[in-house]
């Protein structure tokens, strides 16, 4: 008998905000918390996609053998007797500033505004630079991982990073898909698509796509 294959994921007990919670080994902190109805804010997380760890808003405090450290809940795997805090002065300070950083780019995003209220973030703290995109990568990753088309991607690095539709792929794939639109927390994605459409799609593209 192949014991390994039949062995169930072993159940472990962890502690979140003082509550003892059952979790399965291999789960992330976020998954364990969601299963126990404990809210941890996320921006770049999506259950259909691989954990990404870019927005850092799900940062929580963990205690392992007496050592506390800050980790991202969407990436950190739970382990036996792990002690997790989802709110603290330190965590709130990080979340507040992350929101303030992002609100400078997308002040109208409802998702950001709701969280800003919770964490007391001031949307005018940093000078506005309305790129409207918070670079959560949901569209890019959805297109790559679920649709396997890579019609939208990241270009440039650092402060110049942005998303772009690749006209050749987008012209063939996007007109009848657009599944990524509803994932976007700021609706910038639609604007980026329309821009690509108007600048780089030929008339033939539309006609062939619409006939499909």
């Amino acid at each position, binding site marked *: 008998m192949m014991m390994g294959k039949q062995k169930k994921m072993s159940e472990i007990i962890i502690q979140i905000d003082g509550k003892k919670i059952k979790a399965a080994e291999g789960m992330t902190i976020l998954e364990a918390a969601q299963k126990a109805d404990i809210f941890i804010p996320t921006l770049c997380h999506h259950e259909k996609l691989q954990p990404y760890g870019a*927005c*850092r808003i799900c940062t929580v405090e963990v205690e392992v053998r007496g050592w506390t450290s800050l980790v*991202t809940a969407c990436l950190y795997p739970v382990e036996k007797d792990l002690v997790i805090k989802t709110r603290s002065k330190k965590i709130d300070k990080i979340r507040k500033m992350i929101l303030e*950083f992002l609100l400078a780019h997308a002040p109208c995003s409802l998702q950001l505004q709701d969280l800003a209220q919770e964490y007391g973030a001031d949307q005018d703290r940093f000078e506005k630079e309305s790129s409207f995109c918070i*670079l959560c*990568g949901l569209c890019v990753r959805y297109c790559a991982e679920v649709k396997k088309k890579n019609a939208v991607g990241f270009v440039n690095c*650092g402060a110049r*990073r942005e998303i772009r539709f690749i006209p050749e792929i987008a012209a063939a794939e996007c007109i009848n898909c657009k599944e990524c639109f509803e994932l976007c927390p700021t609706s910038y994605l639609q604007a980026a698509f329309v821009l690509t459409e108007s600048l780089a799609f030929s008339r033939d593209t539309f006609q062939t796509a619409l006939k499909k």
Partner: protein
Amino acid sequence: MPFGTTIREIVYEIGGGIPKGKKLKAVHFGGPMGGCIPESLLDTPLDFDKLAKLGASIGAGSMLVLDEDISMVDVTRYFLDFLSNESCGKCVPCREGIRQMLRILTNICDGKGKEGDIELLEEISEVTEAASLCALGKTAADPLRSTLRYFRDEYEANIEKVKSPEEKRE
């Protein structure tokens, strides 16, 4: 260079000192994510632990000797400008933290500094250090922290200079 040699020996005896008899202001270690020590600590020996305690990790081993004409605020701005292109841009604390710190530093250098800028820089640097995904973001604010540690008066003077003409008018 044997460990234990003092920084003063390296600069003045091996390096031949500062050209044109100018005074030394600081020695910066470890490139754009490193830190600096002021002239008063020049007798520190070249040593990983001792320099790290002073906030100037040796890093890759580079040493940048700065004379009295250099503005430490401008040096910090330069490093962050470099890092804003080096950051991959994936995580928010690094990408946006560097962007905002660079903006504030550029303002201070351009004579547009405001009261509270130093405190804001400190707050941003804490967040980028604590929450960034990789070591680039975690250490991006190191030169800022180290120049604030030893040359805070230069930051204050730069902001004060801006403030004074208005105050005189009042």
